């Protein structure tokens, strides 16, 4: 049987992470499975976790009056979601809903933050990985804002 640590280690987000750090992170992880249509987190609720997707697709959306839930991104196998736990007011800005059956690892944010504070080497490594993902998402959002299919060139 696979150990939780081996499942954590397989996710691309943790690629190349030193063994002691993997053990630290696994201490904050748990397995979650949800059905299509169910919520993983809801806009406005307290953000206490982040998630790595093992299998399935998660839809990120925002409620627009009169239009329902507008989905602006899907998160797929091998990707991660959630950084609202890092900064005040520690609330989800969007809703995360399973598009298919979804298997994720949930990481307890308070547990992780404590470990980051206690071991700055671990904290730095962890934040570097998160920053890269945040940068990629910001760049993608900028291109979505350009609305490139409507404009010429």
């Amino acid at each position, binding site marked *: 049987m696979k150990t939780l640590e081996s499942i954590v280690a397989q996710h691309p987000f943790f690629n190349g992470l030193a063994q002691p750090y993997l053990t630290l992170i696994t201490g904050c992880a748990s397995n979650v499975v949800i059905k299509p249509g169910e919520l993983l987190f809801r806009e406005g609720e307290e953000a206490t976790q982040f998630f790595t997707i093992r299998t399935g697709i998660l839809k990120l959306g925002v409620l627009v009056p009169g239009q329902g839930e507008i*989905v*602006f991104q899907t998160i*797929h196998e091998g990707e991660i979601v959630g950084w609202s736990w890092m900064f005040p007011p520690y609330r989800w800005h969007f809703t995360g809903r399973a598009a298919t059956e979804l298997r994720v690892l949930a990481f307890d944010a308070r547990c992780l933050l404590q470990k980051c504070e206690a071991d700055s080497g671990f904290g730095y490594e962890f934040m570097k990985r998160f920053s890269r993902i945040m940068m990629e998402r910001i760049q*993608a959002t900028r291109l979505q804002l350009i609305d490139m*299919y*409507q404009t*010429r060139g």
Partner: protein
Amino acid sequence: MATRLPEAASVTFSHPDPMVPHLYRVLRTRWDTGDTFSLELTPEQSADIPQFEAGQFNMVYIYGVGEIPISISGDPARRDTLIHTTRAVGTVTRVMSKLKVDDLLGVRGPFGSAWPVETGRGKDMIIVAGGIGLAPLRPAMYRILAHREDYGRVVLLYGARTPADVLYRKELEQWRSQFDLDVFVTVDRATGNWRGSVGLVTQLIGRAPFDPMNAMAMVCGPEVMMRFTTMELKKRGISGDHIYVSLERNMKCAIGLCGHCQVGSLFVCKDGPVFRHSRVEPLLTKWEI
């Protein structure tokens, strides 16, 4: 000895005077999306349309309005009808969108270079389209599918603005159901009932199944999309020599005489519109030429 890399396939004219438009009659019209329509045309003066290659374009002349370049979006193996898929954006395309069955228009062409579907034999073929960019790539899909066994994996990545803007829906669904094709469609935003991906087409590249060491990519869409797509393809390990893009510039003559379409030392009408990416990369990042 250094081997010469193939440029985009060059093609010669099939009509005696490339400046003279030929009369075509509208056979069928269809709205593909809210602003994009396809016209099926048949030649008035001959039985067959001229032979064309995937990626080539025609100059379409709407009498009394003007002439514009439009890629051929039909199957190169079919010589009975000519298909153009056009987005209504301005003066000519809006009038063109109102044409009815039996209306006449002028067509000269085909012009320009073609997608390198022949040189891609034996390789994984990655086709990346954004918005109306799927139209010029559809003939390449037809060509590849007609000789499917000659290629490795065939991956189509397509990005549109919203689900309502997805072109050729039925055909995409049919391709998606084929076991020997990998088709991924993504939109920039969607409402609840869309079951596909949401996000940029560039974000599909990381999870697309292909061998970057033996792959050829063909990319068509808005220039910003092509810039970021080629960056992602290179990150996956495909060299710029194996990535092809199709450029769009205003055109008049379409045969390399007037200079309207010139980009640096290249004429998009004659040297392009399909170019090897490494050849045009410096031009794609210039603000104005």
